[in-house]
């Protein structure tokens, strides 16, 4: 992983674009008192370094995903990367990390019905060879959440490379 070296202009750009990514380079340049070329160059560099990505965030309830669950998984230690990659490939899984702790894989998913959650955990995940144990815990109330600061993974970078 690269050590991020950001200056004030980078941080201002991140702040402006975190509010609204669809504002034009020209408007940003005017607001920050720099040239349009500088804005374009900085944004490109931040994207290439995997420090920012442009996406759409929708509110709960817009699509059929209104609740969140934490899925703790105990999997074979010797091939945990392969098992983790297979689980991460499941479209309903929103986030997945390999961890050191009471589980060696921790996944997060958004779901709409308990049936859908059980199908995901008991039928899909538990059936993957190398998965020994799955524990699910449902978020009933979110006290704090910041959707704008994330881990930008290789998967995201490949999507964002257009344009």
């Amino acid at each position, binding site marked *: 992983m690269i050590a991020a070296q950001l200056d004030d202009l980078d941080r201002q750009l991140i702040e402006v674009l975190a509010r609204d990514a669809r504002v034009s380079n020209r408007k940003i340049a005017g607001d920050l008192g720099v040239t349009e070329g500088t804005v374009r160059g900085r944004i490109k560099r931040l994207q290439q370094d995997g420090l920012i990505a442009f996406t759409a965030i929708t509110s709960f309830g*817009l699509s059929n995903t209104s609740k969140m669950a934490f899925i703790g998984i105990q999997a074979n230690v010797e091939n945990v990367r392969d098992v983790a990659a297979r689980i991460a490939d499941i479209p309903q899984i929103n986030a997945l990390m390999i961890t050191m702790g009471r589980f060696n894989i921790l996944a997060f998913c958004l779901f709409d019905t308990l049936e859908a959650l059980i199908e995901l955990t008991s039928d899909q995940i538990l059936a993957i060879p190398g998965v020994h144990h799955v524990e699910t815990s449902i978020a009933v109330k979110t*006290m704090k959440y910041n959707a704008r600061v994330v*881990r*930008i993974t290789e998967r995201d970078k490949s999507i964002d490379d257009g*344009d």
Partner: protein
Amino acid sequence: MSDDFSVDDVDLAIVEQLRSNGRATNQQIANNLGLTAATVSTRIRRMEDADKLRVVAVSDFSAHGYNVLMELAIEVDGRPASEVAAELAEFPEVFAAHLVTGRYDIDMLVVLRDFSDLPTLLLDKFSKVRGIRSMMPAIAVDVLKYKFDVAPLEARSPQ
């Protein structure tokens, strides 16, 4: 709160386009979907105005100087879990906090600049919060996927 806002397939197709590239122009989206740029613009504005959609730059933890990510499950004793969670949520290192079902009562995502910040956070900060019976961490050693594009959306502040 009554919530009679509804979306159709065209709205969802526009959202999909924006998820893969939030800075695509209205014209690019229109071309991909066989619509007019004006329609795309109107549809996006309608969802934004209803606080159902934000097109944003997300930034990596490392852009904010955070290099360690961990999940922390907390067991509460002798105090309402929502109070304990609200107090823990005040710490800037606590990035997300949820009340959850199961063996633990609170699930949090915690970020650190590096591991040397851990003793201060656990022993001087979290341990002062009343009602924590135990804390069970899971340290992220590799993040394979992180796509939280559905979230509680705040109303846009007029700045």
